[in-house]
C-alpha cells in the first residue's frame, strides 16, 4: 500500500489554477496583440480583440441543441468506423486472463485477489485510453481532409459548438464502452474469487480515517524514526523496550465513528529483528491512548504483530484505567475522557494513539498510512466503481486534449502530442519531471550534462568555476524555465490512478484521489475547449 493519503485542498488548487490560467491567457493575449501589430499594423490588435469578443458572443449564443446534434453525429461516425472492435480484444483478454493469473501466488487467495482486480482495471484503462486518444485526435482532421466539415460549418453551427459537440460525442461513446467493460470486469473478478474462500473474504473496501504521525526516539525526543537499511524508505522504525514511540493524532473522532460502542483501529506494521528472539511468535507491540490535557494514558493489551496483513485492534468505549493517584482502577470513556481539542492548532476531537515495541533489541516499522481508524466497511463494488470513475475522468481529459490538438494539428501529430502529454504526465516521467524542476536530479541541465559527458566528470563533483560553467548555467536556466512552464501545463495523471486503493482493499479516497482528479479534469477541459475553439476559428479549412 503506497498510495498518497494527503488530502487535496480545493481552495489552494483553484488559486493556483487561476494564477496559471490567468498568466497563460495574459501572455498569449499580449503576444497576439504584439504580433498582430507587427504584421498588420494598427488594425491588427483590433482584429485580435474582435476575435476574442466573437468568442464571447459564440459562448453566449451557445445552443445545446446544436451541441447534441454534433455529438450524435460523432457517435454515429465512431460506430460506423468500427471503433468498438476494441470489445473483441477486451473479451479475448478476459476469456484467457484467468489462465495466466490463477495460481500465480500459490494457495494465497488474499494475494491472488490483488492480481485479479489489478488485471481487470489495468486492462480496462489500457484499452479505453488509447482508443479514446485515437478517436479524438483523428475526427476533426479527417473531416477537414474529406471536406465534410464544410457541411457543418456552413450550417448555423458555431465552431465552439463543434468542439464541445465533438468532445461530448467521444465522451459518450467512451462512457458507454467503459460502463460495459467495467461491468464485465467486475463480474469477472467476482467469478475468479469464487474459487477461493480466502480470496472472497479479501474482496471488500475499508474506509480509513488517517491521522498525523510523529516519531519519538529512545529518550523520548521527537525524531524521524530509525532507518534500518531498507532500500524502500517508506517505513521508519521504533526501538524495542525503550521510550521510542510512534504517535498518531486522529481528528474528528466522535461517537459517530464507533460501531457497537467500539472503535476499530487497523495497523500494518513490519518487524525488524537484530536477534532471533522468539521465532515462534511475532514481535510484541503495545498500543496506548493518551490525553495530553488530562495527562491520562490508557495502555491496551499487548499483541503479536502479523506482518503485511491487518492487525485489528477493537477498543471498547468504556476503558479500565489504573489511577496512580487514587491507587485503584477507574472507568474512563473513550470519547469523553480520551478525545481532546488542541486550541493552538485549532484542531478538534483529537484521539492520540501511541505505539511501542516491547521486545528488547527488536524494531517495529511503520508509516503514516500503517495505522488508521476504520469506519464500517463498504462493498468491493463501491470502490471498484470509483476506480472506473477515475479511468473515466482520465478518458474525458484525454478526449478534450485530443480534440483540442486536432483543431490546430493534423491527425498523426495531434496523436503524438496527446500521447506525449499522457506519457509525461504519469509514472516515472512525471516523477522525473518533478525531480528535475525541483533540481533534485544530479548533473545539472542539458548543457552541463553534455560538458560532464565529454569531460568525463561524474555527476556528484561540482564543475570548475569559470566561463564554461557560467555559460552552461545561463543556458540551462533557460531550459529549466521552459521545464517549469511545461511542469505547470502538463497534467499530473498520478492522482487518476485509483487502482492501488481497490487492489489493497480500500475504498477510493475522496480527498486524495477523486476530488483532485475531478478538479484536474475540469481545470484542463476549460482551456482545452478554448484552445480548440480559437484554433478552429482561425484555421483555414480549405487546407487539407
Amino acid at each position, binding site marked *: 500500500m*503506497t498510495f498518497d493519503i494527503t488530502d487535496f485542498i480545493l481552495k489552494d488548487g483553484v488559486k493556483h489554477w487561476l494564477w496559471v490560467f490567468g498568466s497563460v491567457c495574459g501572455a498569449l493575449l499580449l503576444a497576439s496583440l504584439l504580433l498582430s501589430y507587427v504584421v498588420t499594423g494598427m488594425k491588427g490588435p483590433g482584429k485580435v480583440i474582435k476575435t476574442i469578443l466573437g468568442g464571447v458572443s459564440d459562448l453566449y449564443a451557445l445552443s445545446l441543441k446544436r451541441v447534441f446534434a454534433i455529438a450524435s453525429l460523432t457517435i454515429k461516425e465512431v460506430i460506423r468506423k468500427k471503433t468498438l472492435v476494441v470489445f473483441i480484444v477486451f473479451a479475448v483478454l478476459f476469456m484467457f486472463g484467468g489462465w*495466466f*493469473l490463477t495460481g500465480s501466488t*500459490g494457495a*494465497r487467495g488474499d*494475494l491472488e485477489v*490483488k492480481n485479479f482486480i489489478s488485471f481487470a482495471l489495468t486492462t480496462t484503462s489500457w484499452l479505453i485510453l488509447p482508443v479514446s486518444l485515437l478517436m479524438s485526435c483523428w475526427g476533426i482532421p479527417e473531416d477537414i481532409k474529406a471536406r465534410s466539415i464544410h457541411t457543418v460549418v456552413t450550417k448555423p453551427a458555431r465552431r465552439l459548438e463543434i468542439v464541445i459537440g465533438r468532445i461530448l460525442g467521444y465522451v459518450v461513446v467512451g462512457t458507454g464502452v467503459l460502463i460495459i467493460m467495467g461491468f464485465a470486469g467486475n463480474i469477472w473478478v467476482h467469478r475468479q474469487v469464487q474459487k477461493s474462500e480466502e480470496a472472497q473474504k479479501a474482496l471488500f473496501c475499508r474506509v480509513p480515517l488517517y491521522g498525523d504521525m510523529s516519531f519519538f526516539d529512545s529518550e523520548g525526543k521527537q525524531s524521524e524514526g530509525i532507518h534500518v537499511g531498507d532500500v524502500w524508505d*517508506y517505513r521508519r522504525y521504533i526501538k524495542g523496550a525503550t521510550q521510542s514511540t510512534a504517535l498518531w493524532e486522529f481528528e474528528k473522532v466522535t461517537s459517530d465513528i464507533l460501531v457497537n460502542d467500539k472503535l476499530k483501529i487497523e495497523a500494518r506494521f513490519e518487524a525488524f529483528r537484530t536477534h532471533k528472539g522468539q521465532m*515462534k511468535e511475532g514481535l510484541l507491540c503495545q498500543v496506548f491512548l493518551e490525553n495530553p490535557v488530562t495527562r491520562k494514558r490508557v495502555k491496551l493489551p499487548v499483541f503479536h504483530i*502479523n506482518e503485511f496483513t491487518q492487525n485489528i485492534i477493537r477498543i471498547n468505549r468504556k476503558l479500565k484505567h489504573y489511577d496512580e493517584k487514587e491507587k485503584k482502577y477507574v472507568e474512563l470513556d473513550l470519547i469523553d475522557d480520551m478525545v481532546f481539542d488542541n486550541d493552538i492548532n485549532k484542531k478538534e476531537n483529537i484521539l492520540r494513539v501511541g505505539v511501542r515495541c516491547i521486545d528488547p533489541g527488536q524494531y517495529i516499522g511503520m508509516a503514516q498510512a500503517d495505522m488508521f481508524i476504520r469506519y464500517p466497511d463498504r462493498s468491493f463494488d463501491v470502490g471498484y466503481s470509483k476506480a472506473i470513475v477515475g479511468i473515466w475522468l482520465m478518458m474525458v481529459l484525454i478526449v478534450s486534449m485530443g480534440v483540442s490538438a486536432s483543431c490546430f494539428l493534423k491527425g498523426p501529430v495531434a496523436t503524438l502530442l496527446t500521447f506525449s502529454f499522457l506519457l509525461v504526465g504519469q509514472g516515472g516521467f512525471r516523477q522525473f519531471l518533478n525531480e528535475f524542476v525541483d533540481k533534485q536530479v544530479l548533473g545539472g541541465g542539458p548543457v552541463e550534462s553534455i560538458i560532464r559527458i565529454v569531460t568525463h566528470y561524474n555527476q556528484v563533483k561540482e564543475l570548475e568555476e569559470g566561463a564554461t560553467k557560467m555559460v552552461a548555467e545561463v543556458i540551462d536556466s533557460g531550459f529549466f524555465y521552459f521545464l517549469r512552464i511545461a511542469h505547470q501545463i502538463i497534467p499530473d495523471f498520478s492522482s487518476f490512478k485509483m487502482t492501488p486503493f481497490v487492489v489493497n482493499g480500500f475504498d477510493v479516497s475522496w480527498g486524495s484521489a477523486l476530488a483532485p482528479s475531478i478538479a484536474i479534469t475540469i481545470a484542463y477541459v476549460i482551456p482545452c475547449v478554448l484552445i480548440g475553439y480559437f484554433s478552429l476559428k482561425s484555421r483555414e479549412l480549405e487546407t487539407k
Partner: protein
Amino acid sequence: MNNLSSKNRKYIYLLIIVLLYIPIMLLGMPATNESEGGNLAQLRKKYDLGESAIGNVDPSSSTMNLLLLGMRGIATNQLWLQAEHYKNTKNWAGLKSAVDSIIMLQPHYAKVWEFQGWNLAYNVSAEWDSVEDRYYWVKEGGKFLARGCKRNEKSPDMHWSVGNLHSKKIGRSDEWKFFRKFYIVDPDEDSFSKGPDPEFNPEGKDNYLVAKEWFDLANEKDKIVPQHIMIPVLFRHYPSRALLDYADTLHREGRFGKASRQGWEDGHKELTEVYGRMRIVVPPGEIMLEADSEDIKALAEEFAPPGSNEDELREYGEELARWVLKYQDVANYRYWRARSSIESEQMMMIAHKDVYEGQQLYKKGRLIQARRKLYEGLSKFVPTLNQISQRNPGLNINNLDENLTEEIILAIIYFTSTYELNGQKPPENYPLKEIVKGRPDILGRAITEFHFQNRSNN
C-alpha cells in the same frame, strides 16, 4: 531509372520473393511424420534442441514468445525491473506475478529460474517475520525451481538447485526445527489437512530424503549435459551427503534409534558403494575414490599408454593413486567414510543420546543429572573419535566436520555451565576439553547457540 512498368516491376518482385522462399523452405521446413523436414529441423533433432526435447512445452509461453516477435528481451528486462521494484517495495503478489511472467518469456534460461527461485526462497522469505510465512515463501521458491526443472529436463544445475533448497534451506537454516516439522505437517492445516503440501513434498518424506532424489536426478542429467556449478567430484557426492545429513539431523533432533542407525548405514553404503565407485575423470585417466590396490592396477592397465611395461604400469598406478588421495581430500571422503561407519555403531549413538538428554535435563534445571549425562556422553565420544583418527591418518580432533565439532563444544558449554550455575568452578580436566581451544571459530557459534537455546527455549 528503368523502362519497366509498375506492373512488370511487381512481377519481378513476386519472382524474387518466390526465389527467396525456396532456400527458406529448404532450411526451415518443419519435420512431419513422413519427412524429416528442412536442414534446421534435422539439426534440431540431431542435437536435441527442439522445444519439446528441452522439457515440457507450455503453449501459453510459446504463444507469448511468438506474439512478441523480437521484443522478448526488452519485455523480459522490463519485467525484471518491475520484479525488482515490487521486491523493494514489498509488493509480494506483484513480485510473484512478475516473476511468473518473466519465466513465461524465458522458459529455457536456467539462470532466470535459479535467480528468481533463490530470490523467493531466500530473500523474500527472510523479509517475513512469522516462521509460517517464511516457510510459505521457501515453498514458493522450491515449487518455482521444480517447475523450472520440468521445463528444462536436461539441466543438472537446476535439479541440483532444487535438491540444495530441500536439504540446506529446510534442514540448515535458522528456522530448521520449524521448517522440518512444516515439511511433514504444513502449517496451513486448512488447505493440507495436517499433511505436507503435496506440490512441495508429495510423498511426505524427510527433506533430506527428497533432496537425495533431486541430487540423484542431477547426477543422472550430468552424465548427458555437464553441470556448471562445481568440480564433478564434489557435485556427485551430494546424494550420499544428503543421507549422511539426514542421519545427523535425526541425532540433532534427539531421534535416536533404528531410523538414525539405518540412516548412517544407508549413508555409508551410498558413500562407499555408489559415490566411491563412481568413475571420476582426472588428467591421467579415470579414478574411483573407493579404489583399492586391485582397482588402481586395473585402472592403470585401462588408461596407461598402449604397450606400457610392468614398471610403467606401476608408475602409472602410483600416479592414479595420488589423484585418488588428492580427490579424497577435496571431498573429505575418508572422514565421512570413517564417521558414517562409526556413527552406525551402538556406542556412538549412545554418546549422542547422552549429550542430548543432558541438554534437556539442563533446560529443566536438573543440573546434577545433566552434568552426569553430559560427562558420560563426552566420555563415550572419545573412543569413537580415536577410531576415526586411527582409520584416517592425518585426521584429528581439530579437523572434524563442523556439525560434530559444534555438537561436542555445545555439550562442553552445557557441562561447564552446570558448575557455573551452582557457583562452582568447572573441573580442570574433562573429556575432549582440548577441542574448544582448537576451534575458536566454532566456539563463538556454539556460545550463541547455547544462549539462544536457553533464552527462548528454542
